[in-house]
């Protein structure tokens, strides 16, 4: 099991334990974390699962794909720590991952 933490815009923290093989977006949706919408169902096609990855974790994730980079153009307030949660595969290597959620998905 892997623990991931979602920090909502108002500061509320939600720590979730999840099995492997889910995308971070799916973890959020399945656990009713509001602030991640995932309109397209997780195929990198809507940019409504925008998260800010905490400093400590940015290097542990892979690079953004070209499609992810294109789609992030659609999100608001994008920074170098921005990722699309549907493109982050959760596994034990990411145990303790913390992400911040934007004020709202565009």
């Amino acid at each position: 099991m892997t623990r991931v933490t979602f920090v909502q815009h108002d500061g509320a923290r939600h720590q979730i334990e999840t099995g492997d093989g889910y995308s971070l977006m799916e973890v959020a949706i399945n656990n009713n974390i509001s602030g991640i919408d995932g309109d397209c169902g997780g195929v990198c096609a809507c940019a409504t699962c925008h998260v800010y990855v905490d400093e400590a974790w940015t290097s542990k994730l892979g690079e953004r794909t070209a499609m992810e980079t294109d789609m992030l153009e659609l999100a608001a307030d994008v920074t170098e720590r921005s990722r699309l949660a549907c493109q982050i595969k959760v596994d034990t290597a990411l145990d303790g991952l913390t992400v911040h959620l934007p004020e709202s998905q565009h």
Partner: protein
Amino acid sequence: MPHEAAMRAHNRAATIALEDIDVSDPELWRTDSHWPYFERLRAEDPVHFCRDSQFGPYWSVTKFNDIMAVDTNHAVFSSDIGLGGITILDDDPKDALPMFIAMDPPKHDHQRKVVAPIVGPGNLAKMEGLIRSRAAAILDELPVGETFDWVERVSIELTTQMLATLFDFPFEDRHKLTYWSDVVTTLAAPGEIVETVEEQNAILMECLEYFVRLWNERVNEEPASDLISMLAHGESTRHMTPKEYLGNIILLIVGGNDTTRNTMTGSVLALNQNPDQYQKLRDHPELIPSMVSETIRWQTPLAHMRRTATCDTELGGKKIAKDDKVIMWYVSGNRDETVIDRPNDYIIDRERPRQHLSFGFGIHRCVGNRLAEMQLRIVWEEILKRYPTIEVVGEPVRPATPFVKGYQSLPVRIPASASLPARPSRAKARPQIERRPPYRQPAKVLAAATLVSAAGALLFNLMPTILALAASRFGLSDDQVGAVGSSYLGGFALVATTSNLWIDRFNWRLVVAIASLLSVIGLAGSAFAPSMPTLLASLGLAGACLGTLYTVCIAVVSENHKPDRAFGVKLTGEVTLAIVGLLAISTFALAQADFRMAMLLLAGLSGAAAISGLVAFPAGRAVVPPEKRFAMTRRAGGSVRAPRNVTAWIGLSALFISFSGLAALWAFVFQLAPTFGVDANAAENVLTAALVVSGAAGLTAALLGDKFGRVKPLAIGMLLAICGVAAFHWGGDFGPYLAGVVLTGGLWNFPMAYQMGMIATSDERGNIAVLMPAALAVGGALGPVLAGALLAGGHGYAPLYGLFAGATAIGLAAFIVMGRRLASGA
């Protein structure tokens, strides 16, 4: 739709051959009978090629996942307007407005990024209160116990108010937004709100004018959070051209208009057709957001989006060729049962309500989607507070189009009850859009301008003869001849280059009267001039005055509603008067080499033409000229300078250079004659022929238009001119002289019309094209003096021919480069 019609549609769809299915048929959409066709395609031929339709051949993509694959692959499936745009109807890139929905990256990204914050989370939160209060006001006025049209009273009114808010548009004029949106999306045809494309464009120009005014009001104020202010202040948009500005406005007006409108109407229809869902909604208002998404799915307000393949590719086992038109039928994907459970049912509490294609996916996903959802949510929150039920009491009327899937009307009724007393309708009719009839220049005004312009152009057209006569009268050397030519043209140039400073300050009739009088004095003065300085001075005066007449006439003729034809008429008039002048001079002055008589004849003719033109001459502008009408004030300061329009400057420079060459040659054309053994009378005849040809050349250009593009005719004309000067150089008798004069001076109006057309087209901001008269005037003044200087070197006329050939060749090369830049979109 009525049961029998539905049955008929089903039978036809079941029996028709697959290859004959054409889902784009507008009649299917008007009658809402496309559904069985899409069912069949999804089952039997999900990626389906339709060989022929009123929109040409196209591929239909009908299943959810295939549509998703196309929508997210923007590199292969392009939205670019140059390939036809984003609807099944091919847009003409020449007419089309630049909008980021019909662009590919990177340009798409830059433009979308500027607009996106307007409909982003921060702004939405700010707008919620205002949307709610406006919705409340509209809903409170609805009649109770009476039938009314939901589309007109609610859907249109609400979405229009929403748009007005986004733009901070003057509230009392908001009906114009709906009008302009309807005008843009209508296929111009008799009986529609716009009957011709010309009318459609004229209305869009009025829209642009209005928005330019708003831009100019806000650009130097503090930045505000409405779209116009954001565009005027944004670093990457403050230099946008009027066309780009209009394109973005239209995109938001259209994108935010009928889609939301039709979903608002659709929600009432859907709930009525599914009363159990309506009851569920009343019992559980917290389901409103979910119901909104379900309605957007069920309605699919834009039935399709179109892409064009940029290379050969494969989809669903089919081979799609480069340039093929590919239609993503969102309406079909939204009913795909392999992805959506019970897709034809309207279920307001689905598990994943946003699982639909109506907003598209990928980089072009609707930028306003959250705003649309918010509007619909607020409206339903307010409806449920007031009206337990809204009954549909008649059939909806749908438009005949495969693109916008909506309703032109929906009759509804809010029943009265004990708790909801009857309320009569207090409908205010939608204000009628008054259209001022477009300005139509009266024929007599064009005639007047033609006469005055002919007077203005007379001396230039006869310049070769006049200069030759002056040369013999005063014993002038070639460089002195050049000076004489340039003095006249210099006066002309001075007036033309400064026209912006004076043309709108004075009554034109007064200007024409004074300028005519002074030009007669100038011409007569040169007739009697005892010495060179006096000659130069009086010709300079004549030039300035005749130049004034000519410049004012350009302004008048530019207002004509058929400009090509009007300029053709003006040109014909100028040529005619010139021919009369030549005849007069040949008869009375030439044989005797009587310079004085010639100038007096010119003074008389010019004066007579100008005074007769004065009779019907207008006192000032009748319409605002385009460069003023759409002049967008730019915010002062900032780090990004306006982009240099290199292409237009290349054209303007080329115009200047090649016209200098022409003016140089033209000044000496009569003087050249003896070197070909051509006597004065024969030379006059040749000049007359050249004048006739010049009239015909201008008319030909006007008639031909850009049927063969612009670079080809321009190149042919300029190459022929070079051949003409070659004939001068290598020939020695009448034939080459005739050929030379006709091909250089005679033909010149033909390529020049295209040169000016290219510059005008390349200059979207309008600040370079207005310099064209100045370029011609300065080039025209420079030419003769340059020629004189060259000829003074004493090497015969060869240097002059070289100058012309060189200037023409440089000009031609520059215009070819310009043509390439324009074609590649620079």
